[in-house]
């Protein structure tokens, strides 16, 4: 963009551009009071003049942002004071305009597809689109603002805590709203809004500020995140469909977190990770009270879950001990081969090709619901007048497991063990020379990650009711890897986001299901090409992927300094 319009031209046209941009923003705000669609069936019914639908209101919010960002600087630099430097007004306005335009495009396309043709798009839709185009075009003529410095603003603790609380509440509301959207068009439009909003907030510097606020109030952040996740089932009013998705997301995410230790921290590429989930699931299924279980030993679930985890981690040791000496690429293929061996073996333990343990390809159906301390997970119950279904019970159980995993993960990450892992990832020879016991640490990562997957598998067996070998094919391993890569290797938040995206999108975009894998393949290629560090980037890893980028190195260094300045306010400077 910078190359197209010269700085000189930008400086000369800045007042005109701002005026035109404001007109565009006003047009967008006006558009939400018009009808966007001819029919009521499109999106979330945008056919009432003067009564905006929720999605239209969200669009209005983006338009208001554009308006505010363009209009507020009109009061002049002196009145803005230091806020002139804290916020990147022009650049943020450009991002907001782009976000609004993007949302309008998705909405108009959604209306056209759902009602059959652009003819069904009412004037409101066109006004929104035109307003978006105008404001994007005009903001291109605004001079670039310097980087925002919101994160340097000193803020009181109560403000930080309350912002974290509000942000968490918004996340809860957004998640509940998104899951409530049943039709694909509305879901995509809302997704466009969310992506746009995140981009704007990032440009605004809100995430830098939040990450510092979060680091200062770590406990508040973690507890409120769990509180929000815990409250989530109450927003669903007994709807099993969404809670089932949510429980699946958590099982998937827990497994991905285990893989994250192996791939993200230690840098060992494991392409057969799903086998550990499968090992846990099959163990739990065989030890369950299912009529198809072939083993006459049915311990309570607490014992089963430990056995499942242990079986998985023993498998991890068995595969890891001999193979961890081979280098990266080879390890990937060995683990892939191991995953296939696991699947074929489960298929063959059917009585004709081996002892009958797993019923072969038919698997073990009819696994009963969990029974913990006399509480049956299959029973729906009512809390505070809200129905809580079967899947919500599993969701809460997985949340508990997840919490344990995250505690273990973060503590390990910041311990001697975690630093050893990262050292191995960066340079194994150097790590060994510095006295890191590389073999033991790698083995620990392998079996520890496998244990987590085994635990998740044990819950999955009961959640899914049946376990078959075909649930544990290579593609599932690739999905797990994709969740880790997409979200950001080595980070907890990233993996959670990646797992949510990969599980949620296919459920919500069913019309798209035939193209799901095609898009998945493309996504992997594009991620590696354009953002190999993932959505939430681990700073060190980001540097690794952009080794020649000096600017980024400086930026990371500077961030470290400001971060430390906030953590230790009495020390003025922090020497790297």
């Amino acid at each position, binding site marked *: 963009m910078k190359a197209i319009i010269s700085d000189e031209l930008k400086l000369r046209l800045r007042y005109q551009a701002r005026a035109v941009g404001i007109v565009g923003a006003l047009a967008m705000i006006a558009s939400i009071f018009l009808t966007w669609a001819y029919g009521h069936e499109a999106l979330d019914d945008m056919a009432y003049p003067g009564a905006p639908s929720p999605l239209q209101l969200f669009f209005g919010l983006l338009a208001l942002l554009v308006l505010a960002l363009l209009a507020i600087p009109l009061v002049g630099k002196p009145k803005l004071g230091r806020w002139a430097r804290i916020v990147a007004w022009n650049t943020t306005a450009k991002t907001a305009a782009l976000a609004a335009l993007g949302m309008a495009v998705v909405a108009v396309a959604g209306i056209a597809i759902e009602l059959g043709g652009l003819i069904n798009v009412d004037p409101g839709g066109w006004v929104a689109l035109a307003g978006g185009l105008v404001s994007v075009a005009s903001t291109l003529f605004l001079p670039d603002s310097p980087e925002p410095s919101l994160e340097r603003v000193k803020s009181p603790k109560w403000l930080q805590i309350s912002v974290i609380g509000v942000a968490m509440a918004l996340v809860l509301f957004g998640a509940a709203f998104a899951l409530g959207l049943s039709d694909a068009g509305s879901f995509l439009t809302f997704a466009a809004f969310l992506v746009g909003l995140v981009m704007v907030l990032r440009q605004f510097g809100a995430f830098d500020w939040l990450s510092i606020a979060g680091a200062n109030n770590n406990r508040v952040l973690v507890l409120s995140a769990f509180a929000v996740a815990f409250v989530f089932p109450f927003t669903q009013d007994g709807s099993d469909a969404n809670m089932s998705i949510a429980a699946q997301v958590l099982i998937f995410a827990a497994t991905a977190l285990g893989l994250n230790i192996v791939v993200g921290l230690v840098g060992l590429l494991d392409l057969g990770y799903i086998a550990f989930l499968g090992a846990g699931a099959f163990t739990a299924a065989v030890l369950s009270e299912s009529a198809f279980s072939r083993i006459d030993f049915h311990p309570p679930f607490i014992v089963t879950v430990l056995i499942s985890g242990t079986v998985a981690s023993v498998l991890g040791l068995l595969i890891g001990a001999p*193979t961890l000496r081979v280098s*990266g690429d080879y390890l990937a293929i060995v683990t892939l081969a191991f995953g296939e061996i696991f699947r074929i073996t489960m298929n063959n333990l059917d009585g004709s090709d081996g002892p009958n343990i797993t019923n072969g390809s038919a698997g073990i159906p009819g696994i009963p619901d969990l029974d913990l301390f006399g509480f049956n997970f299959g029973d729906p119950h009512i809390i505070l007048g809200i129905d809580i279904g079967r899947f919500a019970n599993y969701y809460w159980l997985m949340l508990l497991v997840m919490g344990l995993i995250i505690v273990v993960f973060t503590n390990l990450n910041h311990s001697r063990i975690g630093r050893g892992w990262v050292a191995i990832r960066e340079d194994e020879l150097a790590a060994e020379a510095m006295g890191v016991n590389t073999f033991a640490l790698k083995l620990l990562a392998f079996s520890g990650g496998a244990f987590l997957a085994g635990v998740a598998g044990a819950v999955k067996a009961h959640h899914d009711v049946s376990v078959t070998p075909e649930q544990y094919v290579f593609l599932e391993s690739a999905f797990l890897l994709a969740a880790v890569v997409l979200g950001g290797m080595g980070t907890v938040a990233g993996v959670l986001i990646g797992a949510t995206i990969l599980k949620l999108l296919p459920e919500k975009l069913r019309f798209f299901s035939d193209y799901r894998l095609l898009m998945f393949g493309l996504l992997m290629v594009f991620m590696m090409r354009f953002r190999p560090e993932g959505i939430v980037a681990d700073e060190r890893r980001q540097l690794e992927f952009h080794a020649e980028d000096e600017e980024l190195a400086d930026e990371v260094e500077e961030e470290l300094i400001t971060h430390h300045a906030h953590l230790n306010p009495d020390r003025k400077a922090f020497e790297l």
Partner: protein
Amino acid sequence: MDLFFQQLINGLSLGSLYALIAVGYTVVYGIVQLINFAHGEIFMIGAFGSFATWTVMGSPTDWPATGSLLILLPVMILGGMAASISVALLTERFAYRPLRNAPRLAPLISAIGVSVFLQEFVRLFYGRIPGLPDAKSSIPFPAINGITGEIIQIGGVTIQMSAVFTVGALAVSTAFLWFFVNRTRTGRAMIATSQDPDTARLMGINVDRVIMAAFAVGAALAAIAGVAHGLTNGNIGFRMGFLAGLKAFTAAVLGGIGNINGAVVGGLVLGVAEAMATSFIPGQLGSSAWKDVWAFVLLILVLVFRPQGLLGAKVVDRA
């Protein structure tokens, strides 16, 4: 004893197929240290390309044996090669080349993406090309008079003509490959680049072109393997590349990755071992349901006890 020779023949035929694919892994790995995870899909595309060529020729089924063998089959192979080489070069250009200096995980993950993408692309869009059948389930591969259904009987041993074709194709390809690598400028440039890419560049070798040549050579042999697979199994499907690719990679590692002769030897050994395992391992573990397991166990054993492979890897570990 007949059983032994029968399984030896079966194993050699299967092994030739693995060897043809394995060359592609080994050549590429020798030069760019990349496990081209999508190479199994290149093999699959070769098979589908030759099928498309056959359809373009009017789906002939009644050609006499000589015409089939001298014209129809070669043209089908060339068509398959054209398809596989162009896809291989495209993936190299767009999925691997931009990542050449990235950490080693990146191209491998990208390759997994390419692999999934190519499978799905064939599944979804092959049937949309006018005249071609839907590829969502297996497609019967055309019968070639003179090969399909023909057998040679020696004592108690039955040899399928398709097995003769596969072994013969491997022999001819290996001879060509030897000539290409050792006697042509491009081939010698490939050796030089695999030994030291930076010095090779200083000597005026166009490294990009050499890498493209490596992908193209691998894809050409994979296309031959695709046709051989079609003739042997009688049908082709979009999923056929995954397992075959994995086995072929096993073969490449078995022989010593980066070593072309090793890939051929590794393929043959793996094929024979697999065939023998189904006949000579006693009890339930000897049933054919376990044969893939034995191949992978062999892979793990080789990597643990002899990571340089049977003939020795020809890769300098620069990691």
